[in-house]
């Protein structure tokens, strides 16, 4: 009995000494750091770490430096769910993830359930790259924030920019991967036909990153004779498709979402010239100051998803500056509310959160592959030249009817 009393007394002292220290804000990166999608996952993690360093340089949060931990989800949703539990056990307040909508779908559900079951210990999920519409539709929830552009934003931006440049034509082919993102792209291309003044001559969905030989698809594209091919394909599916079309000597313009993935330009070679991309950020679209700052800290210019992911951390930093817990317990819901009301100025224009579904209203950059650009890609003499920057309020689409967001009681 006496021993128990001593242990109790000792643990009480231990608890009170920890309470003397302020509670640090903990950030968890649950990303694909091994397996097939490492190349993308690593870049998201780089950008988050860069952003956290900026926050800590400015004095951290709640009187302590922000703590950041990496969790490897090995590219799969089950592993991500597992790592989410681990992150919660480590006391993580905010999680970041970007590679794969499927994993984002798993995490947002996990976060939603966790927050219902653990009031007062909520977790925020900041989605850097899960573009599936359902994440701000059917699955939308208060603690999920999407800091990237979705299919309709990209397609509408590309259609308007390509039409102005006279590169769109009247016949459009739509080829996409057969899962949520590819289906969203296909729907967006079909929906944009009226405004863009084009006709979708054929559309096809194919397996995701399983196809080694795209020649049969090229034969199909050829027989439809389009002017422009819209595709949301990424990784091998984009590269192989582009190479196969180039090898067949077809004269079509590609309108893509992920052409800036490292390695694409070098591997595609001359075939890539003249193709379009709509994305969140491109170095050439800015005055270059952010790119230089990023290079100074990390050793390279921001590539692929690094730029826009760093902006998400910038927005978070701004939101954190609005809340003050005086070194005490961190209230995650208050941070989420502050993030909702944050408008972050990026070199491309402001990014703000739409309260109804937590999709960010953000600028979209449309670029084209040219020779001798300001920022060459992959060590080649080719790279991206900005065609048009679409402001956030022009790029955004209406809130989906399926979104029913339950807000926390205030």
């Amino acid at each position, binding site marked *: 009995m006496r021993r128990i009393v001593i242990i109790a007394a000792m643990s009480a002292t231990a608890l009170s000494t920890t309470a003397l220290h302020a509670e640090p804000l903990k950030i968890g990166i649950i990303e694909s750091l091994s397996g097939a999608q490492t190349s993308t996952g690593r870049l998201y993690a780089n950008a988050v770490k860069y952003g956290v360093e900026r926050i800590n340089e400015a004095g951290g949060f709640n009187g302590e430096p922000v703590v950041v931990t990496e969790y490897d989800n090995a590219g799969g949703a089950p592993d991500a769910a597992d790592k989410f539990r681990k992150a919660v056990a480590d006391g993580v307040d905010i999680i970041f993830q970007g590679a794969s909508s499927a994993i984002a779908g798993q995490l947002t559900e996990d976060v939603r359930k966790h927050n219902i079951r653990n009031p007062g210990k909520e977790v925020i999920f900041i989605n850097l790259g899960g573009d599936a519409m359902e994440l701000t539709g059917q699955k939308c929830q208060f603690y999920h924030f999407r800091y990237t552009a979705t299919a309709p934003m990209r397609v509408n931006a590309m259609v308007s920019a390509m039409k102005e440049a006279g590169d769109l034509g009247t016949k459009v082919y739509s080829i996409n991967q057969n899962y949520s993102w590819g289906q969203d792209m296909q729907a967006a291309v079909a929906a944009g036909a009226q405004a863009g003044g084009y006709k979708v001559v054929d559309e*096809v969905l194919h397996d995701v990153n399983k196809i*080694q030989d795209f020649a049969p698809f090229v034969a199909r594209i*050829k027989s439809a004779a389009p002017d422009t091919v819209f595709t949301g394909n990424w990784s091998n599916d984009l590269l*192989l498709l582009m190479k196969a079309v180039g090898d067949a000597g077809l004269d079509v313009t590609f309108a893509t979402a992920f052409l800036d993935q490292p390695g694409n330009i070098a*591997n595609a070679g001359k075939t890539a010239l003249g193709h379009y991309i709509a994305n969140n950020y491109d170095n050439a679209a800015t005055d270059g100051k952010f790119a230089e700052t990023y290079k100074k800290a990390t050793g390279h210019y921001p590539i692929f998803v690094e730029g826009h992911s760093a902006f998400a951390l910038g927005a978070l930093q701004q939101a954190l500056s609005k809340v003050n817990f005086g070194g005490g317990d961190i209230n995650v819901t208050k941070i989420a509310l502050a993030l909702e009301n944050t408008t972050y100025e990026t070199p491309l224009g402001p990014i703000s959160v739409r309260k109804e579904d937590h999709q960010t209203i953000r600028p979209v950059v449309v670029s084209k592959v040219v020779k001798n650009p300001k920022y060459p890609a992959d060590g080649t003499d080719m790279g991206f030249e900005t065609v048009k920057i679409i402001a956030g309020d022009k790029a955004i689409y209406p809130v989906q009817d399926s979104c029913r967001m339950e807000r926390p009681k205030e």
Partner: protein
Amino acid sequence: MEFAIISTLNGVTYGLLLFMVSAGLTLIFGMMGVLNFAHASFYMLGAYIAYAVSSIFGFWVGIAVAPIIVGLIGMAVERFLLPRVHAHGHAHELLLTFGLALIIEELIKLFFGDFPVNYQMPGGMRFSAFSIFGADYPFYRIFIGGVAAVMFTALWVLLTRTRTGIVVRAAERLPAMAEALGHNIPMVFMFVFGTGAALAGLAGAVAGAFYPTNPNMGIELGVIVFVVVVVGGLGSLKGSLVASLLIGLFSSFAVGLDWSLASLMGLVGLGDWARSLGGLMTLKLSSISATIPFALMLIVLLVRPAGLMGERN
């Protein structure tokens, strides 16, 4: 007609590429009974070594050196790793090679980075062999097909028409007897394994310049190569060739055909009803073309468990 000719052409060249990668796997299993899970990793290794060598000494040196180095690595694996688990049977060999595949993949990422590397065919080979129905047909696809054809002929002649082939086949059938006749069986096995690995390395060196060379190329092709070997019949070289061509042709034709269950129902007047159901009924064949090899494997295994040309054992 245009569709049929182009699809056949595409299907055959893709099938020959599949054969090129699976030939080594078939050889190793057929002659040694080892299921080598790391085979596709040897393929990837071949591509990366060819990339590294060719960036200094040129494309052809890369293609010549890659299979030799990969073959030597294969021999080392057979000599130092496999004997330790051989006594425990197939499962342990499979697990060992599976682990090896993971290690090779991470090593590649460590040395060459996560992104696809810029391994290109020489400019002189980047031309169209001929033009068919208004589309160019790249010469390099023909080149890949040619290498595969040469590979098949060479292996076939070696195994069935030469003395070396007799010794190798004897070592597979009756190892004790062949050993008693004075043949160094462990040496023979080491060379068979090395040759199998070298063939994968050659395939990687040739195909890597056409398809992107990236750290995932092993996994991506690895599964399909196993399907080829199983459909063809484990260990049968002819079977592998037939299976590769079948898979190539099936996937090529499937892409152009927008068939669905609904259109099948349409033949008996139930089309509109089926379309209104949606879901599985309207799933187009083209959207599941990459699944066809697996369906083919399922059917072959149900009808002929030993594979198309495999021997029953």
